[in-house]
């Protein structure tokens, strides 16, 4: 493998976002006809590096060399023209259009009719059929993308990326919602690509996948390059320790919470939509951290949003402190002392153009209305300052706009927002997504502290170590159903994965 020549070189790439140095002098060398795994924790900079390669971001410094020639990539079109294609981590389909239109977007086949060029639908259909046949995928080219399952959409994106006949294909977490069969299938496709001399850059968190498919592995941490190794020299343990950069035992704070009586009981909760959650029953205790694991598309977010009154429920009951709670809206949920930290911090969490103070108090303004219907500014400032101090939010002042804080500090402000509503049950949906390693530890400490003080925590996490390291019990979902609940002492990565794919065909 190592005798293959270097096809792509990214030299000393740096990229800075306000408040975060996302990439610091990173170098990546990828050989033709090989699979190069790019590894690192969430927020290590892998996706950012690939977005620079694909023209979605421009790097602040550094150069990209393809086939020995320095190239400038100004936008995605340039990247595609140079023979670089990408399977994006966040799926990028056009929802109300057909599969084939999504695949040939930007390069529709056309027929000349005199002066005008019309789309050659027949050719497009045939080419799409042929593409799926070559890849042995069963997708109808005419299906409207919005009506497909997540795993089918992901397969479509894989097919699209290979259809460019690129020399370099970037796959950013291509298996996040694939079943085991489909993963095996993808690996056959990758080996075929390798034989054709294509360089595949493969990003994944799944160790077994990496060790099975990769020839070389580059590990990143906190936006910096740690090193590149031949995959055969590596083991899961070595990779993890290099990714984390310190002993695994120190990644999570000591927890001294003691689960007490049952606070919330959910019975056979079922969504009116047949692809969503079904028959989910579980309990949460006082002072307990209940983790929820599963793959993308397992409907975990949908479930907790239903608990919070954001989604409709067809049948099933929610009991709080033994009494049935009819939760129809977030207002009801707040009245039952439930809080929800949403998954998409930027979309459904922060108000970017408002100050830390406004963001902190947003869920709780009613508490500051004085007798003459104005807001009590003095108490607002006091409470914000108290929150900042308690959660150790690093901000110049409470007047700073929240968008100027780092992800970790934004998340702390959001936690502060919900703590001010004095919740008994805190639902955290991917609480450390996109947060750098140091700040993660602080968030974990806050969670552990809250549990110790008797709050019940429900935490969705897609990061296996976080799930295993922070939960008292782990409940795993697969395709909307509860596939099992594991006690912390019995839980292993393998068991969780097995449950997470239990109902997949």
């Amino acid at each position, binding site marked *: 493998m190592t005798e293959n020549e270097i096809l792509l070189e990214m030299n000393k790439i740096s990229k800075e976002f306000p408040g975060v140095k996302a990439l610091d002098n990173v170098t990546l060398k990828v050989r033709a006809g090989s699979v190069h795994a790019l590894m690192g924790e969430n927020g290590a900079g892998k996706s950012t590096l690939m977005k620079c390669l*694909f023209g*979605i971001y421009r790097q602040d410094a550094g150069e990209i060399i393809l086939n020995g020639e320095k190239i400038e990539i100004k*936008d*995605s*079109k340039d990247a*595609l*023209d140079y023979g670089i294609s*990408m399977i*994006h981590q966040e799926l*990028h*389909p*056009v*929802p*109300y*259009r057909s599969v084939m*239109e*999504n695949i040939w*977007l*930007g*390069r*529709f086949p*056309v027929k000349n009719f005199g002066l*005008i*060029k*019309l*789309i050659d*639908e027949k050719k497009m259909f045939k080419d799409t059929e042929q593409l799926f046949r070559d890849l042995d995928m069963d997708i109808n080219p005419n299906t409207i993308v919005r009506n497909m399952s997540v795993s089918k959409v992901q397969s479509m994106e894989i097919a699209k990326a290979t259809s460019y006949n690129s020399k370099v294909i970037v796959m950013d977490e291509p298996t996040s919602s694939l079943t085991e069969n489909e993963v095996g299938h993808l690996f056959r496709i990758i080996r075929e690509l390798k034989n054709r001399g294509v360089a595949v850059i493969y990003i994944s968190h799944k160790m077994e996948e990496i060790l099975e498919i990769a020839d070389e592995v580059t590990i990143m941490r906190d936006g910096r390059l740690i090193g590149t190794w031949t995959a055969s020299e590596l083991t899961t343990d070595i990779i993890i320790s290099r990714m984390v950069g310190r002993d695994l035992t120190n990644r999570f704070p000591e927890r001294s919470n003691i689960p007490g009586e049952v606070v919330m009981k959910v019975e056979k909760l079922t969504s009116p*939509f047949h692809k969503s959650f079904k028959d989910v029953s579980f309990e949460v205790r006082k002072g307990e951290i209940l983790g929820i694991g599963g793959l993308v598309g397992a409907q975990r977010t949908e479930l907790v*949003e239903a608990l919070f009154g*954001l*989604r*409709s429920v067809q049948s099933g009951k929610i009991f709080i402190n033994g009494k049935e709670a009819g939760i129809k809206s977030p207002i009801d949920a707040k009245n039952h002392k439930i809080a929800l930290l949403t998954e998409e911090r930027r979309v459904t969490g922060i108000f970017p153009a408002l100050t830390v103070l406004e963001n902190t108090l947003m869920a709780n303004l009613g508490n500051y209305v004085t007798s003459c219907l104005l807001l009590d500014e003095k108490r607002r400032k006091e409470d914000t300052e108290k929150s900042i101090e308690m959660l150790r939010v690093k901000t110049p002042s409470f007047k700073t706009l929240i968008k100027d804080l780092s992800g970790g500090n934004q998340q702390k402000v959001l936690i502060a927002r919900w703590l001010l509503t004095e919740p008994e049950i805190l639902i955290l949906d991917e609480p450390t997504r996109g947060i750098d390693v140091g700040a993660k530890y602080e968030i974990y400490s806050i969670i552990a502290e809250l549990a110790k003080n008797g709050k019940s925590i429900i935490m969705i996490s897609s990061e296996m170590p976080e799930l295993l390291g922070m939960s008292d019990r782990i409940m795993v979902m697969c395709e909307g159903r509860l596939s099992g609940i594991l006690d912390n002492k019995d839980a292993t990565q393998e068991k969780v994965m097995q449950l997470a794919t239990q109902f997949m065909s």
Partner: protein
Amino acid sequence: MNNINSNRIKEFLSQNAIYIVLVVLVLSIAVTDPRFLSLSILRDILLQSSTRVIIALGAAVVLITGGTDLSAGRVVGLTAVLSASMLQTSDYVRRFFPNMPDLPLWLPVMIAIAAGLIVGWLNGMIVAKFNVPPFIATLGTMVIVYGVNSIYFNLPPNDSQPIGGLRDDFTNLGSGYFLSVPIIVIIAVIISVLAWVLFNKTRLGKNMYAIGGNREAAKVSGINVGRNLLIIYAIAGALYGLAGVLEAARTGGATNNYGNMYELDAIAACVVGGVSTSGGIGTVPGILAGVLIFGVINYGLTFIGVNPYWQLIIKGIIIVTAVAFDIRKYLAKK
């Protein structure tokens, strides 16, 4: 089994709601007064809807990209005045250009359409290159175009007098017949067919849906979003331009206030016809049905003697309910 059938019926009703509304509307007016179902009335409705169809198609391409175009009405006014000012009979007393020789019909028509295209291109430029939100960008050009048109309209010797005395070959475009079909209707049909081809059979059309449906997806698929937007806004402008010419020809005159608020009628027809204001969705048959619904209301309700103020209220209710129903198809299921 019954369940499946009732689901199918529901699906059919919701997919074709707009056409059903149109039929029900026509039938209920016909029940009140059977004379409504006559060829001459159908012809009148089509005649009145023709320019509106062209404007609505222009508004629709912009809506489908996820934008809005408020400049439509004022562009109609501008090109109505422009074309009329150059197509007056040579013996008309208040001629805009007293000494100008008679121009061939196509020349002023092309100049007017080009003027519309330039305004549209400017809209696209402001939206695509300077990232001004379409609502604001076209609000600006709407006001500018009205200003420019009024200055032109106020030039001596016209001095803001309504432009009349239009040549027969010109007014023939708006009120003439070809094989007993109004020429203006034929033009609208041709434009609709071309629009259907653009929407469904060209790269530009598919890109338009992609940009409105998921701009980021369009970008990472290598589409030049800015250039596509520029062309689409320019096409919209050219369509308004053509509509302005036809409006002057149909009414036999023009003033600087022509077309005022037509953009809102066009947007209303589009959304009633199933075009999504958040982009990515819309079909030509739907837009035609949307325009016809308003045509039938305007004509039919007057025909059966409904007070015009009541007609406004009915129109408003139709806009809101149509969209409230239609949007249920697309709402994120929660």
